[in-house]
């Protein structure tokens, strides 16, 4: 049903730490790898080895340059995927009921057997989280690895989304935002986690942690003593003589 649940039991989602993300694209690859063989049809590629490669991805990592009023610019790597919004506009526009938000945990999913591939849900999403698969003709989106997180055939440490499991810097965290004591809730509270495009009224579940404030640049480099090379011998004599002229 495309009517959004008034409230969901859990609010499962991700915290993405923009301070620690190094932009290695491992989450992009892990996501593509898992979702090629997991929930629904595989994520197809078109002309992957040719001159105009293109493909379906559920997670993409951008890189932005932020210029503060004072001080040097910062580079921020920015992973972008479905935010599993509470007021998900992609769900209500769906004419067939293929898009839905789960009452039990708040995950936004697509029932691919009912999807007619009209693309209206992708239009309704401000975040570009949905991509129509060019081979299968159905809408693909992040499932929060619904086929991993509840999968009792996997060792317990693997029961989290592939992107979180693979992140080498621990920049991605998975948990329940409805529980104020969960890791994701505490991280959000401690680090001032924010929503993306709040003006769109989507009430996203996922939160992003801002880059930490960097201290003022050191007045002198800690390497300064090493760089202060004193000339000796003939060069030293020449240095002293020329300095006196």
């Amino acid at each position: 049903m495309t009517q959004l649940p008034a409230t969901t039991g859990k609010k499962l989602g991700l915290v993405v730490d923009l301070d620690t993300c190094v932009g290695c694209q491992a989450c992009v690859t892990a996501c593509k790898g898992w979702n090629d063989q997991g929930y629904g049809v595989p994520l197809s590629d078109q002309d992957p080895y040719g001159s105009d490669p293109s493909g379906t991805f559920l997670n993409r990592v951008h890189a932005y340059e932020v210029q503060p009023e004072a001080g040097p610019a910062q580079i921020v790597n920015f992973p972008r995927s479905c935010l599993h919004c509470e007021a998900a506009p992609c769900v209500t526009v769906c004419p067939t009921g293929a898009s839905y938000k789960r009452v039990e945990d708040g995950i936004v999913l697509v029932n691919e057997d009912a999807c007619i591939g009209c693309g209206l849900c992708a239009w309704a999403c401000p975040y570009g989280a949905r991509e129509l698969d060019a081979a299968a003709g159905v809408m693909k989106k992040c499932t929060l690895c619904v086929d991993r997180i509840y999968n009792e055939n996997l060792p317990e440490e693997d029961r989290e989304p592939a992107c979180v499991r693979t992140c080498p810097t621990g920049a991605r965290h998975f948990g329940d935002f409805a529980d104020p004591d969960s890791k994701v809730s505490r991280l959000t509270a401690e680090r001032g986690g924010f929503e993306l495009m709040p003006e769109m009224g989507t009430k996203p579940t996922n939160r992003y942690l801002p880059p930490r404030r960097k201290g003022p640049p050191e007045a002198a480099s800690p390497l300064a003593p090493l760089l202060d090379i004193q000339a000796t011998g003939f060069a030293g004599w020449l240095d002293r003589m020329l300095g006196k002229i």
Partner: protein
Amino acid sequence: MHPAPSVILFTVLSGLGFGFLTCLNLGLALPQGIGGFLAFAVGYGLAVGGLIASTFHLGHPERAIRAFTQWRTSWLSREGWAAVLALLGTAPVALGAMGGARPGLLGLVAALLCLATIGCTSMIYAQLKTVPRWNFWTTPALFFGFALTGGVLLSDLPLAGEVLSLALAFLLAFSFVRGDRRFAEAGATLGSATGLGAIGSVRVFEQAHTAGNYLLREMIHVVGRKHSRKLRMIAVVAVALPAPILALLPDGLVAMIPAVLFHLIGAFAARWLFFAEAEHVVGTYYGKR
């Protein structure tokens, strides 16, 4: 947004069809006998042809019947119901007209259903906050304007056609100019999209992927805007032209055919721009509009 030919054909043709059927259902034009059959056949042909064209862009058109299930929340689903009900409701009126009967109350109901269909189609676009240019009252106004003007022109009502054509041209020109401010009004910027605006000014350092993808093709389609200034002029002039044509040429098919032709040229140009000029907020992530 990507100006898909199937969607442009669908919205223009089915809009014109339902606009014409509205006029026929209201008895604004009273063709009888074989003329009545032809008039309703044109209305049905345009409306149904447009609806069929709309299925061409679907990934799975064979499942289109499922689109009738979610009318509680989805304007696309409501449009499906409204279209089917309008086409069914028009049938007895059409049969009556061929026998020489006036539309009456049944006609009024059928006309309201036709108008509801046009309204639902417009709301599919107007509801999208993500496309600020569409998310404005001018969107339903334009859809009703094009449908009813086209319908009146096909109904061979010269005076109403002149007034509506001029009014529509003004509305269209206004929507172009006013629409240019909508994106800024919506407030989505790269700063709000990334949340990094609180730190400083944000710009794209490196794109997330080197080649194209669905988002760039579908929502950040900038190629279609290349000739937008010229197309805006063409659309406004073509939409206004039926007014002098109807005023200067003698009544009848001599005036009606060129009037409808110019109206259609304007409608297609305007609908192309409606899609091509619509900027989706996801473009901010790519530093594009």
